[in-house]
Structures are given as structure tokens and as C-alpha cells.
């Protein structure tokens, strides 16, 4: 028997009992890169899973695997899920892109949704949020709040999403504070609390009084809370336990509406492969409460910026913006196109250091 049809037969066999009792459940699988208790990225995806359960009740069955490494293990986990009869599988980290495509090719009857990637297929959709909109707001607050003009940035991997975030934050910090400087540390991990905490301490020791992070744990905020006058931001989630300081605001990823919509599409039989990249306008990116540690006028400016971005009146990457080497990227009034943003592999003018490759 051909390998693929064997797999299909196995999948059918696994789905058999559900069909037999005349009550077909839609099985929804999630593959997470961190633990659901990380308080950040994976936590919010799991909130999405819970929202799906709440919305559809007995009509769905959910399953998830946490802390799955990005690599061969991910492929194994996805295959296992597909064999056990999942109808739709959400893979929630950039590094799952190739494994998702590979597994999807073996299971044409199962649909896949990959977060933050760019490779699609007939049964693979991609979805991501415009986090840079939120980072522009945090950058504005950071530029206004810093006393030492040193902002520390804990970066995970040198991929466009992370570079875009650094650029968006720097651009808006620089606009309100020409003296501001960014120190970027690359830690090459999404989730390693020990390393993230050490990186935050190194940045603080060198004079940074604002810490921005693009890693998933609350460890940098915990490190910031030990030093008076240092502020940070929640990443991917509210991280409310550090309010009102050091956590003065937060970028919250709200995946629940998207997950509910996509699971419903599978149930209706209307699912098709799409590419979704939503921002504040649809509520996929939210800004958590700006606390009283931020002076009222700065808070008002930030709220105004949120309103403008939400209404579509302002795009964070609006020219004039030069590349790091001084060449022109966007002319006066020009707005960045999505293609360039999705493949962004350069720093904008004023940022020091090089992007590792």
C-alpha cells in the first residue's frame, strides 16, 4: 500500500469511533513552543484554545503539546496529532514553518495553520499579527520615559519579525528623544528564563533604564523589578503581576477570535488557505493598560497613537526613513509595503551594531 494512503487509512481508523456514535467532533490540535505557563507567547495561544472550547463546547475536542522544540521533534508531534485524527492543527512558532509544510504534504485531508511563517500550501494557512504597531507605541513610551537615554532590547532570533520590532520601537523612541540609544542583545532562544534574566541584568548594569524584550518569559521583568527606576513592558501577554512598575504597558496578542473563526470554517466546510496579517484594527494586537507609572501626558500621546493606528490613519513605518547605511528606504510620506516589511533584514538609520546571520 502506498505510504500516504496508509496514513490516510490510519487517520480514518482513528476518526472511526467519533463517526460511529453519530456525533462527529471536530478535533483541534495545537503545537506550542513553550510551556502554557510561560506567562507570555504560549500562554496567550493557550487562551485561544480555551476560547475555542468555550465557543463550541462538546462539538470540538482539543489537544495540545507544549514545549516542542523547533526541528525534527516538531514534525513528529504534528504527525502524531494528524494520525490521531486532528482536523485542524495550529503550529504556533516561526521555526515550525518547514515541519508544518512537510507534514501537511503527507496529510492532505488535515488543514494546518502556521503562525508567523510565509510558506503556504492548499491545506496550510499562515497567520500573524502586526506586532510592530504595538512596538511603535512601546518605543514612544520608552523614548519619553528613559532618563539615561539608554534602552536595552533583548532580541531572540535575527528573523524579519524581530528586526521589524527593533526598527519600529527605535524609530518612535528616536522621534520623541533624539538622544536615545538602543543596546541590542541577541540571546538565540525564544524561552530561556535564566538567559533572559542575565541579559536584562547586563543591560541594566550598562545603564539601560528601559528594557524591551522579544522573548517569551517574565524573567526580564523580574530582573527589572530588582532595580529602582527601571521599566519594562509585557510581551505577548499582559504580565499583570509586575504592575504598575516595572511593567508600564504591554503588547497583548489576542488570538481567540481568529481561532474561533478558523475552527468554525473547518466545521462549515468553508476553510481555505489564506494569509492573515492583522493588527490593532481587528484587535489581534492589543495594548495592555498603561499604568500610572507613566505620566499622564505621555499616556495621552500613546493613547492617541493607538487610536490613529487602529483607525488606519497612521502607519508606523511612514517615511522619511533611511537604512542604517544612510541610503533612502522610504521617501517623505511614503508608507512601507507589506512585502518589504515581511522580509525586513536591515536596521534603520541610527541603530548601531550588526544583525547576526
Amino acid at each position, binding site marked *: 500500500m502506498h505510504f500516504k494512503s496508509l496514513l490516510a487509512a490510519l487517520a480514518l481508523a482513528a476518526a472511526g469511533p467519533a463517526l460511529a456514535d453519530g456525533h462527529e467532533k471536530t478535533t483541534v490540535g495545537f503545537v506550542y513552543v513553550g510551556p502554557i*505557563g*510561560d*506567562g507570555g507567547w504560549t500562554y496567550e495561544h493557550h487562551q485561544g484554545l480555551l476560547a475555542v472550547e468555550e465557543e463550541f463546547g462538546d462539538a470540538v475536542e482539543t489537544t495540545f503539546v507544549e514545549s516542542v522544540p523547533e526541528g525534527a521533534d516538531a514534525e513528529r508531534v504534528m504527525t502524531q496529532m494528524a494520525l490521531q485524527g486532528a482536523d485542524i492543527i495550529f503550529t504556533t512558532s516561526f521555526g515550525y514553518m518547514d515541519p508544518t509544510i512537510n507534514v501537511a504534504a503527507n496529510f492532505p485531508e488535515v488543514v494546518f495553520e502556521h503562525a508567523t511563517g510565509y510558506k503556504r500550501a492548499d491545506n496550510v494557512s499562515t497567520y500573524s499579527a502586526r506586532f510592530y504597531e504595538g512596538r511603535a507605541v512601546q518605543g514612544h513610551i520608552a523614548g519619553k520615559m528613559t532618563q539615561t537615554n539608554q534602552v536595552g532590547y533583548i532580541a531572540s532570533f535575527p528573523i524579519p519579525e524581530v528586526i521589524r520590532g527593533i526598527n519600529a520601537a527605535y524609530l518612535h523612541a528616536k522621534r520623541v528623544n533624539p538622544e536615545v540609544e538602543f543596546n541590542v*542583545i541577541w540571546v538565540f532562544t525564544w524561552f530561556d*528564563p535564566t538567559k533572559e534574566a542575565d541579559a536584562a541584568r547586563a543591560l541594566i*548594569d550598562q545603564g539601560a533604564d528601559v528594557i524591551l524584550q522579544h522573548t517569551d518569559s*517574565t524573567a526580564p521583568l523580574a530582573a527589572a523589578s530588582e532595580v529602582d527606576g527601571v521599566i519594562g513592558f509585557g510581551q505577548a501577554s499582559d504580565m499583570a503581576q509586575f504592575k504598575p512598575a516595572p511593567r508600564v504597558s504591554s503588547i497583548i496578542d489576542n488570538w481567540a477570535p481568529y481561532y474561533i473563526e478558523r475552527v468554525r470554517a473547518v466545521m462549515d466546510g468553508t476553510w481555505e488557505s489564506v494569509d492573515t496579517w492583522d493588527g490593532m484594527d481587528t484587535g489581534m494586537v492589543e495594548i495592555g493598560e498603561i499604568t500610572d507609572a507613566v505620566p499622564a501626558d505621555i499616556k495621552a500621546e500613546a493613547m492617541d497613537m493607538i487610536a490613529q493606528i487602529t483607525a488606519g490613519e497612521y502607519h508606523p513605518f511612514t517615511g522619511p526613513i533611511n537604512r542604517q547605511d544612510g541610503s533612502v528606504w522610504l521617501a517623505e510620506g511614503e508608507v512601507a509595503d507589506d512585502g518589504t516589511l515581511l522580509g525586513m533584514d536591515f536596521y534603520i538609520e541610527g541603530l*548601531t551594531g550588526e544583525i547576526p546571520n
Partner: protein
Amino acid sequence: MDLSSINPVLLVAALMVASTPILLAAIGELVVEKSGVLNLGVEGMMIVGAIAGFIAAVETGSPTLGFLFAAVGGALLSLVFAAITLFFLANQVATGLALTLFGLGLSSLMGQGYQGIRPPLTSKLDLGPLSDIPVLGTILFSQDAIVYLSLATVAAVWAFLKYTRAGLILRSCGENAEAAHALGYKVKLIRMAAIAFGGACAGVGGAYISMVRVPQWVDGMTAGAGWIALAIVVFGAWRAGRVMVGAYLFGGVTVLQLNLQAAGIKIPVEYLSMSPYLITILVLVLISAGRARALGAPAALGQVFHASR
């Protein structure tokens, strides 16, 4: 690039914090190995200590009780190892590896429901005017109690092994267990005490990660620190002082590479990230190339002892 933005005083203070977990685990393992037992389960004992201490600290609100429970948790787990290797005469290497796997699983189970919680903060010791002394004040007199405890443990282990009769007896068990037995010493009891001490040290080291360095509970958060501690015992040639140097060297490179990055030094990040491991390997090679025989491993290390032999 701006090296001047690195403050050497803060750097040294930070490296002491980064080194303390592996230093504690390594000094405990040193005593275990000196008694002739090779316990490869350090990683498992550390992670169980990390969660045991975390739970106790969160439930009681007292970091001190947390560290106490971490020591007890690590010691209890090590006694499982002691029972299997000393009384059922199992292979120490295999049992140690199993202990690590068991510890990782057990800690994950115990930690259900403790993710995303903030533990009570371990306050720094207030040493009054001492901590206001420039340079020395920041490095020596403004750390938390566990840093001092780790240094005191190193000194105590050094003095115990070098100057006391009990230390001599413990070392004799590691050099020639049959001879020690013939002289009437309870080899198994002595080794069991050493193993429990090693477990307690590893447990406190693990709790230092979950309660001070991060502070948060995450599955598998010791992330190989136990293995580094084992390597440092070899690196330190089974001597307390050198174990301390090794631990601080490793912690120092880890912290230094993050600081160099923050200062914008133009060395590719990948090289910086692997530098701690490269330097550990390099020093190991240098040490063992010259004087492999004189390295000082206890003669009976890893050998099962039974009085009938």
C-alpha cells in the same frame, strides 16, 4: 563599540550571582566523589531542589524556608540514589543518569500549577556601612545570603577535607574502601552521608536559580547546570579552591559575553554564545594534557563496595 560602558565592579557582582548555582552543586559533588561515589544525577537533584524550594517559598512566603526545603528535597532524592547504589549494589553511572531523568520528570509533575507565579523575593543581606565601601562594597558586601553560604561551604569543605580526622576518613573511603572497612569504618554510612550532603548542596543550587536568578518556575529550567557542575569537579582536579575558580570562570564568561554584546563589541554573537563551553573544554585539555595522572581522581571512584569482597 564602547568597552567603557561595562562596569567591572557590577560585572564581578553579576558573575558571582551567575556562578553560585553551579558552585554549590559542584562543591557538593566534590564531597560525594571524594568518598568514592560518582553521582551523575546532579542535574536531577538540582531541578528537584529548584521546584521544592519554589513551592515551599511560595506556600510559606519565606525564602529561608524555601532554601531549607530545597536542601531537604535534594537530599531525599540523593538518598534514593544512595539506597540503590550502596545497598542494592547497582552501577553508579547508570543509576546517576536515571536519577537525572527521574528528577526532571518529578519536578515537572510537582511544578504543575506553579508556573507564572512570583516567589517571595530573597532580600540582599543588609551589611550596613560595609556595602557602601567603593568597589569592594558592591562585590563583597551587597550580595544575598546564599552567595555567602556558597563561599562558606567551599571554605568549610576545604578545611574539612584537609585538616579534620573525619575528612581523612571520608577520603580513605574514596581511595581504598576495603582498607577503610578493615580499619573498622562504616564505609556505607559515610558514603551515604556524603551523598546526602551532595544532594542538599545541589538542591540549594537549583533553588537559587528558581528563586533568585530567574525568579520563576519553568520546566527544565536548570538547563544543563548540573552537567557543568560535574565537569567543574574534574576541571578543579577534586580540590575545593579550584572548583570555585572553575565555577566563577564559567559563570564569568557567560555574563561577560552578554555584557560584551550590550556594549556593542563587534564579535559575531555566535562565537560569544559558545565561548563559555569553548573555554571550559580548552582549560580541561590544558589541565589533562600536562598531568593527567596527577589530576587527583579518588582511586576508588565509581567502584561498588561490598564488605564481603
